């Protein structure tokens, strides 16, 4: 292991901005995709259900 402390780990040998900027952006985008997918599933079920009710009449 190359780290002596948490701050040492976060500093990434002085390149923390670049390393955590990469992983942080990826993390945010992945969480966003998962969240959007949940919203899509719910909205599309709601819309399809409404359409079904209208078409029944």
């Amino acid at each position, binding site marked *: 292991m190359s780290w002596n402390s948490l701050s040492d780990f976060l500093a990434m040998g002085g390149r923390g901005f670049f390393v955590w900027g*990469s992983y942080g952006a*990826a993390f945010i985008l992945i969480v966003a995709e998962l969240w959007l997918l949940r919203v899509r599933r719910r909205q599309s079920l709601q819309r399809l259900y409404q*359409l079904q009710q209208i078409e029944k009449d």
Partner: protein
Amino acid sequence: MNIFRFSSPQTFYPLAGKLIPVFGTLAVLCTIIGLYLGFFVAPTDAVQGEVYRIIYLHVAAAWMSMFIYLVMAFWSAIGLGLGTRLSFYMTQALAPTGALFCFIALWSGALWGRPTWGAYWVWDARLTSQLLLLFLYFGFIALTRSIEDPRRADKAGAIIALVGAVNVPIIHFSVKWWSTLHQGASVSMTKSSMESSMLWGMLIMAFAAWFYSLAVTLARARCIILERERHTDWAAAEIAAKGAKA
């Protein structure tokens, strides 16, 4: 067992529902193991220092972005050739995740380029062809969503996926064909220029990207199947059962 049975949306839909949690769990496990190896086992790079640790994200995302496009081209060819609806659904379900990984590859590449090359961006063959891939993904998504008739949208999207697939080998060989700032491949089938813990960290992160893509694509495909098949008996029953609670 006849595997072609699963090319029917009706049998594929519940199967996909069962597989999503399996692939999701595998994705989380691989990410934990891959990042552990990458950040706590793998040593500091002799030349680049710690910043090289972006590799575990960058390479997995870049590989995935190219692979997803090839899978889209594959499904498009099957869809156009055999007329299977599910193939087109899969193509459309894959595109947003492909675009996501393509963007992550470019973003992490820019943040890696600044401290190592001195620039966030250069118009180099590898970077430019990867940027073109991102535009191909955006083009595919915009085109399929802007055509109202879904069957025409399927065909138009399939053509963009097939034609654009030419770009993938260009990205792959760009570092050989042109002299670029981007380094050549560190890993090939026969040899690797990396330390083994670095290599394993990278490969396991690539598997994590695979499992994540599978889980997310199947979830998206299920939405598309319901939307497109809503007039079939089974889909109508599913919508009636789940829609009331949504």
